[in-house]
């Protein structure tokens, strides 16, 4: 990650104070207020109905799953859940907002006053949350160079979001990154969202101000938007805090409370002209959405159904399964990897083997394919079968690694593939002995070297035997046989 020390030179007198607004897309099948698919990746305007295109006549009806995921988000952030939550309308005009208003929660959001524990190089810290509310997403605008116009896609309109609003507790970019990674872990493991910044299912706006260290008063605050990766967020924070500090020290610029857009290519933030910064949104309660009462029973139900958190899984892996902290950290660092681990271990109860196959083999294949750990898509039944074939010495590990690629890319069934292509270890001892004899004869000089005391030649001879066997031999058996035949 970036070198945070680059800020410290000018930071002697100043303290950077930041609050975050994180928007997270909820993992529902359908949208918040209509039954269109909420899935990412469809062609423009393919997941749109009259309601989310702003046509009249289709009243909004609340998605139950969205409420439950909101409850889950509240639980994992230790928030106080509002007993009766309601929805409000926020009015403004913009082409990505087809109804001219966003349904959000102003008066009674789903929860308040939670917190998230983070850890940075400086130690542990508690980030407190002001509130979390549920609201609908807006559409997407695409600028078309050829026609000089803006094109509007409503697929994302009305997709359910939770907005997680923190208090201004952040002081460094490192804390911000730690928080976002922790949020991602909490929410993805709870099944609330896949939190993929690159797909836009997790977005972060930073409210930043600077004050002299020791001051109780907050400085002028600017909001920065449009950071699409953790790296961009760090760069934006560094740039913006520098801009504030320079303005305070030299007066070259007057700081104004405003929203600014981060341009990662240019490495600068720009004032968002044209977007009304002090807009009166004319909020009022939405009369067609009935209040939602969140009972203790419902909360308990959601809590009981919560998947294992990353933290709990880490503890279980290290304490109960005896796995290393290093490996457990990798697995619990990604909901997807954790799911692959769980499903595979469920079929072949050998956690150590499974973890090795994932952290060593699966991840390196993915890296070669330029895929992240969240994007690995493997049939765990086949994966488990493959591991089992290697463990029971039906095939050796080298062949196993090659087959793993095929399981991933071609979705082969390992057992039938091994049979079909005769990839199994040679079990005929006689045949194997013949191979060994051939090698000992061919490389008699090496044999002599070994007898003279050169232990390293042993490995060379094993390699030659494996080559003759077209790799289809159990290395352990070959080792034993060779040793037997040499002595």
């Amino acid at each position: 990650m970036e070198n945070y020390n680059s800020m410290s030179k000018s930071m002697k007198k100043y303290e950077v104070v930041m609050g975050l607004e994180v928007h997270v897309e909820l993992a529902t099948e359908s949208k918040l207020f209509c039954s269109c698919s909420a899935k990412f990746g469809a062609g423009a305007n393919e997941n749109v109905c009259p309601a989310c295109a702003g046509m009249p006549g289709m009243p909004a009806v609340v998605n139950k799953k969205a409420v439950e995921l909101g409850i889950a988000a509240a639980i994992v952030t230790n928030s106080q859940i509002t007993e009766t939550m309601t929805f409000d309308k926020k009015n403004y005009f913009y082409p990505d907002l087809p109804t001219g208003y966003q349904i959000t929660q102003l008066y009674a959001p789903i929860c308040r006053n939670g917190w998230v524990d983070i850890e940075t190089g400086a130690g542990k810290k508690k980030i407190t949350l002001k509130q979390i509310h549920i609201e609908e997403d807006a559409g997407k605008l695409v600028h078309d160079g050829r026609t000089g116009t803006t094109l509007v896609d409503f697929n994302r309109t009305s997709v359910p979001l939770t907005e997680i609003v923190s208090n201004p507790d952040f002081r460094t970019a490192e804390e911000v990154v730690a928080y976002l990674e922790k949020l991602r872990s909490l929410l993805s493991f709870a099944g609330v969202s896949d939190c993929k910044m690159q797909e836009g299912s997790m977005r972060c706006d930073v409210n930043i101000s600077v004050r002299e260290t020791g001051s109780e008063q907050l400085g002028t605050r600017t909001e920065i938007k449009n950071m699409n990766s953790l790296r961009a967020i760090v760069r934006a924070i560094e740039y913006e805090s520098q801009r504030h500090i320079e303005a305070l020290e030299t007066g070259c610029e007057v700081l104004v409370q405003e929203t600014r857009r981060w341009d990662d290519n240019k490495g600068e933030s720009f004032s968002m002209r044209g977007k009304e910064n002090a807009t009166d949104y004319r909020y009022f309660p939405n009369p067609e959405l009935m209040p939602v009462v969140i009972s203790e029973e419902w909360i308990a139900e959601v809590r009981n159904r919560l998947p294992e958190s990353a933290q709990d899984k880490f503890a279980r892996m290290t304490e109960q399964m005896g796995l290393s902290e290093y490996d457990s950290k990798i697995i619990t660092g990604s909901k997807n990897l954790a799911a692959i681990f769980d499903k595979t271990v469920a079929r072949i109860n050998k956690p150590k083997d499974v973890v090795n196959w994932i952290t060593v083999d699966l991840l390196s294949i993915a890296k070669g394919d330029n895929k992240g750990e969240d994007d690995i898509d493997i049939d765990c039944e086949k994966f488990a079968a493959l591991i089992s074939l290697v463990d029971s010495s039906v095939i050796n590990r080298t062949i196993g690694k090659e087959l793993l690629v095929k399981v991933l890319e071609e979705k082969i069934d390992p057992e039938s593939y091994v049979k079909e292509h005769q990839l199994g270890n040679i079990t005929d001892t006689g045949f194997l002995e013949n191979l060994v004899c051939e090698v000992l004869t061919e490389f008699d000089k090496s044999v002599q070297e070994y007898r003279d005391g050169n232990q390293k030649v042993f490995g060379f001879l094993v390699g030659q035997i494996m080559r003759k066997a077209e790799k289809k031999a159990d290395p352990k058996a070959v080792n034993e046989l060779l040793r037997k035949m040499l002595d």
Partner: protein
Amino acid sequence: MVNMIELATIEKINLTAEETAQLSAYAGILEDSFAELATADTEGVTPLVTVLDLKNVLRDDIAAKMLSREELLSNAPEQYDGYFQVPKTLE
């Protein structure tokens, strides 16, 4: 005071001078009549948002496709390449 020009701008409605004058007159009558609201004692009264005493009206999370893109865009005044088309936005 009903600031007709400011409100018309917020609500993105172009008014002619004549309309502005006429509407200002009506708005004045309305605003004057609204002053009587203050005569009601609403201490401790919760605002009524809906006349219905219903709670938890929720929908199962099932996706369903209602319109094809063609059907959706058939009402569009301007469309391009599967999108609704508007003049360039400022950012």
